């Protein structure tokens, strides 16, 4: 980038307040203090982390939620000043030995859902902030003008500056601040930036970008805290960026109690990846985009707003197409020491539209979710179009998942004539019209046109289309792929009851990070009964929650497997890797751990989050109901496209002879059957999780897991 005006921009910063703190080493993964910043009043202070806080909340998402719980009121909305953005890291975060150990967890009260949302994100900001001296960063209040928060972890200073001149869009602003705050040219890798983008000033389906400096490419790479509208809250607080500088990273900066075990366990996984990735998931070559054809093969790749899961056109987005665009042979870890190296990049990409048309840029991704959400689900099959949508989503601060699902919903409404070209302001939202999709994005950034409406997300569009355009609200409810206000991520769950639960029972909304059970359930039939499914919908959400408590990534758990994994008792759990986590936890913290205690740590925080949702007005059974599109065929064309499958389901599962029945009648019976099945599943899952039939954690369960804190019980009792 052109760095000629860096000094001038920096000279225009005005210091609003400054806080000096003592630099202390991290001990056994913890600093024992968090950083609180109030932007309304320019207050910066430290908070002590007690033994009880560690015992109950561990770190990461646990710390986030605890700090946020104490900060907000029951009535707090996303844009109230007391709402917070909290970023925490966890005791294992920042170790350079075990792959996937550099994650930050971001929480806030979501503008889309009104309840806490949590995002697990890579980049260097989290580890550097942790090693600067803090186990969490809490941002409250609203600045009067655009500000940046700068944490100098080398000197022990936190500052709030005005920053009027820097850009808003992330691919530019991240590099501007990196160059401004690096001690000298060549030391850019010690600076990391959190930013959003122009669209976050106008729409709700937004994200935050966490940077890491790529020394080989000499660019700022961007990883996204994607879900739930975190970027909108960030900009509502008038934060332009968070910047951290930390230059002291070594292999033992966490000061683990047993570095030998940590190193050996990490090295063993490095070797597994070295040997196995090229025959397993190919993460080093294509990242998660390797899933494109796998999902299409199994009828799981969403097309046309989740109508179908398979199409011949999908060959256009085959992973080999993305591989050809990704620069190969580069260590693409979003934190040091991640040999799985999944964050691929397209170098020197030249957008064909928008404000950066023709300018060479580095695009992070597309990952699978973006390929599916912004490609197949919109019936866009040119990988370069997907790359361009990906680029503009990231730099404008738009979540590619919510963007894909929201746009797919708008396109289906356009197909049915619910909206037309008059409503869209001239945009032809025919399936596959990449030009129109890109223009929607540019409108979101400019704050104008139909882009603002799509950018409110599916739930608000449903309401608007029903109220203003007299659309059939039942149909909108069926095809609007959201639950709790959050858009579904990009897997077809129609034929997997367990995954319908995995999605829709997820606390923050339908994201697959709690459970991905489609192969276990639909393909391999390993969890046939309600109780089996409920057990899976207890274990996997709890196990995966643990990554967010520790500052870890999920991918090195099961996107690489030991050679003998298939011969173990429970291959879906990848037992050897679970043991690795047990071992490295003890190696860093010195605390005892086993596979049961690991789940118990998660259960506490998971139930705390559940009660937090109740406190904020969500979290009830009615919030856990999926739209029918996630469960079965909404339209006749969907039914007829897979008639044999659905007729068979009627005959064998619903004990109804489909012969002689009209398609409409068959659809009705199937729908009743599937909702009934789903209801039974929810009963079983709630029971397994220790909740009432209404989804309220019981007092006994909270006591058993050690989450019977007075403030938690006080909320729960309101609902029992």
């Amino acid at each position, binding site marked *: 980038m052109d760095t000629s005006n860096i000094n001038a921009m920096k000279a225009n910063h005005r210091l609003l307040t400054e806080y000096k703190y003592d630099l202390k080493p991290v001990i056994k993964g913890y600093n024992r203090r968090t950083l609180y910043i109030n932007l309304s009043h320019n207050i910066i202070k430290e908070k002590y982390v007690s033994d009880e806080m560690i015992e109950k909340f561990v770190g990461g998402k646990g710390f986030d939620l605890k700090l946020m719980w104490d900060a907000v009121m029951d009535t707090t909305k996303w844009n109230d000043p007391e709402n917070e953005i909290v970023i925490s890291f966890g005791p294992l975060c920042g170790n350079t030995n075990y792959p996937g150990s550099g994650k930050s967890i971001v929480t806030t009260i979501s503008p889309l859902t009104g309840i806490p949302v949590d995002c697990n994100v890579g980049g260097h900001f989290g580890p550097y902030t942790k090693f600067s001296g803090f186990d969490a960063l809490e941002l409250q209040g609203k600045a009067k003008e655009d500000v940046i928060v700068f944490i100098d972890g080398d000197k022990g200073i936190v500052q709030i500056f005005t920053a009027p001149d820097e850009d808003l869009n992330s691919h530019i602003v991240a590099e501007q601040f990196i160059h401004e705050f690096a001690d000298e040219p060549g030391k850019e890798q010690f600076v990391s930036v959190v930013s959003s983008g122009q669209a976050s000033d106008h729409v709700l389906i937004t994200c935050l970008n966490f940077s890491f400096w790529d020394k080989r490419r000499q660019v700022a790479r961007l990883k996204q805290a994607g879900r739930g509208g975190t970027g909108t809250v960030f900009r509502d607080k008038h934060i332009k960026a968070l910047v951290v500088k930390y230059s002291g990273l070594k*292999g*033992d900066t966490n000061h683990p109690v047993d570095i030998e075990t940590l190193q050996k366990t990490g090295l063993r996984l490095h070797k597994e990846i070295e040997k196995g990735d090229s025959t397993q998931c190919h993460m080093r070559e294509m990242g998660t985009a390797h899933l494109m054809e796998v999902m299409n093969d199994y009828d799981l790749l969403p097309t046309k707003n989740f109508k179908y899961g398979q199409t011949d056109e999908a060959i256009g987005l085959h992973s080999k197409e993305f591989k050809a665009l990704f620069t190969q042979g580069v*260590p693409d870890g979003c934190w*040091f020491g991640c040999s799985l190296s999944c964050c691929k990049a397209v170098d020197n990409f030249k957008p064909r539209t928008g404000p950066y048309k023709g300018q060479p840029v580095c695009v992070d991704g597309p990952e699978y979710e973006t390929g599916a959400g912004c490609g197949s689900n919109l019936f866009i099959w040119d990988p370069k179009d997907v790359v361009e949508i990906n680029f503009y989503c990231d730099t404008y601060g738009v979540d590619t998942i919510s963007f894909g699902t929201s746009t797919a919903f708008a396109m289906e409404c356009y197909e049915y004539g619910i909206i037309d070209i008059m409503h869209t302001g001239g945009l032809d939202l025919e399936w596959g019209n990449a030009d129109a999709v890109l223009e929607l994005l540019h409108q979101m950034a400019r704050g104008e046109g139909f882009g603002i409406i799509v950018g409110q997300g599916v739930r608000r569009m449903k309401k608007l289309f029903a109220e203003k355009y007299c659309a059939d609200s039942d149909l909108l409810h069926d095809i609007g792929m959201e639950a709790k206000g959050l858009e579904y991520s990009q897997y077809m769950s129609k034929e997997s009851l367990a995954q319908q639960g995995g999605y829709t029972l997820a606390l923050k909304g339908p994201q697959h990070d709690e459970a991905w059970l489609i192969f276990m359930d639909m393909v391999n039939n390993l969890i046939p009964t309600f109780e089996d499914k409920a057990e899976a919908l207890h274990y996997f959400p709890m196990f995966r929650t643990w990554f967010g408590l520790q500052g870890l990534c999920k991918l090195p758990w099961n996107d690489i497997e030991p050679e003998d994994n298939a011969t173990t008792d429970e291959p879906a759990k990848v037992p050897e890797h679970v043991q690795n986590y047990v071992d490295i936890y003890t190696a860093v913290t010195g605390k005892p751990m086993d596979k049961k205690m690991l789940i118990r740590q998660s259960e506490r925080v998971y139930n705390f989050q559940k009660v937090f949702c109740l406190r904020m007005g969500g979290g009830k059974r009615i919030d856990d109901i999926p739209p029918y599109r996630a469960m079965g065929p909404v339209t006749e064309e969907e039914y007829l496209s897979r008639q044999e499958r659905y007729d068979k389901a009627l005959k064998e599962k619903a004990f109804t002879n489909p012969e002689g029945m009209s398609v409409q009648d068959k659809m009705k019976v199937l729908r009743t059957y599937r909702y009934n099945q789903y209801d039974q599943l929810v009963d079983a899952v709630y029971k397994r999780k220790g909740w009432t039939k209404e989804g309220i954690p019981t007092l006994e369960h909270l006591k058993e897991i050690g989450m019977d804190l007075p403030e938690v019980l006080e909320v729960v009792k309101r609902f029992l």
Partner: protein
Amino acid sequence: MKKYLKPYPDKCIACRACESACSMLYFKEDSAEKSCIRISENAAGNDINVCNQCQTCVATCPTLALKVNAQGVVMVDKNLCISCYMCVAACPTKSMHRYMNGLNPFKCVACGMCAKSCPTEAIAIGQE
């Protein structure tokens, strides 16, 4: 140009003088675990494991701590290394090493000290 240590395993008598010379030079202790050159005795004969300066590790290092010097020798920059050991796993000849409770990985830098200590000329500095 590439300077490297060329092994002649047929001449090796497994006296391990090379391991001692190497670990004494770099770690000031006589320890095979801290030697960049490793001798193993097999039924088929003795084997000499040492870096051939192929540079595979250089491409894997996330911090650019592995650099090739003017003589074609791969060097570890301890100031940049963050001890992730991705290089140890990636080394095709298993010649990048770590030691118990240490931080930085280590490897042969083709200094030739071991060759001088070898009584049978089983190792020698070579150039390509």
